[in-house]
């Protein structure tokens, strides 16, 4: 597991870089609305992890019940698109600068990629 330590350090650097981009995109224009992007991307893996707990055969029917999983996937897709669409629409309305929009999208992508990679490397189950 020697590669694990290097991966953790690399991932933490990438996570810090993502948060740096988001916070810079807020602080340079002193407009703290893009911080919502960080919140969205942090909350994005949550539906899958919650719903994969609930899925499974229940007491009433013998077959495998994957409606919870599907709902989790649906919510995840919505969250990821929200993280991209929120700064885009804010920039379209002229509330934040276009550069701030690009920076917050890139930072959010880095944060979400870190979360995905971390859970892909280090979790026991293959669901992220």
């Amino acid at each position, binding site marked *: 597991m020697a590669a694990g330590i290097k991966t953790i350090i690399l991932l933490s650097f990438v996570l810090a870089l993502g948060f740096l981009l988001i916070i810079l995109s807020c602080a340079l224009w002193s407009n703290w609305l893009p911080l919502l992007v960080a919140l969205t991307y942090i909350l994005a893996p949550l539906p899958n992890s919650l719903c994969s707990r609930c899925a*499974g*055969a229940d007491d009433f029917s013998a077959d*495998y019940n*994957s409606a919870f*999983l*599907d709902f989790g*996937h*649906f*919510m*995840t*897709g*919505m*969250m*990821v*698109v*929200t993280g991209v*669409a*929120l700064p*885009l*629409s*804010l920039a*379209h*309305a*002229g*509330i934040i600068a276009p550069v701030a929009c690009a920076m917050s999208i890139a930072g959010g992508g880095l944060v979400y990629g870190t979360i995905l990679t971390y859970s892909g490397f280090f979790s026991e189950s293959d669901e992220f």
Partner: protein
Amino acid sequence: MSLPRRSYDPRRVCLIPFPTLPSFLQTNKRSLGIYTSGALFAIGWWFFLDACILSSLSSRPPPSSQDPESPWDPPVVTISFADWVPGLCGTLGMIVVNLIDKQHLTEAVGFGSATFSFGGGGGGFGSDSVQWRARLFLFLGFALMAGGLAGSITVMTVKYLVPVLPPGYDYYGVANVVQNASIMLSTVLLWISQNQESEFEYNLTL
């Protein structure tokens, strides 16, 4: 010499065959379809919310509009509740369509056709009233969604295209149509991908 048996019909319909999906896409086709469906739903709603944000910002007077030579005039048209109705109808229809148990739609006869009709309902429609009611709700859901799409086109035409407006207001109507179209596409994609057999169907849980 005997040819090996094939499990599929090898005759080709298209001269140039469709490209097959790569293997990692084929194993979790179902979850990818559902992710894409959620993404489409969010894209639609964000188009509409973008138009709402623009409209709300344009109807707010600027703080430094005290100079008398250029008085601030309010916008001609803003987004009102009438623009929200088609999207709400479409979302309600999507919820209705996805709450139907799909096994009830296709099965010919319920568990014992005579015993499973509650209260003797659906007497004139054959013995399986469950299937009849499920199909009725499916029709209602799709009618709600199609009504939402038609309503959004109506709102765009009546409110934004027919009156002579300064340029830029078309976007509100177009965003409404895009919202309803992507809600409908999202529902169709969700329906298709939920009918796919998933590879992870047989999980042993204790």
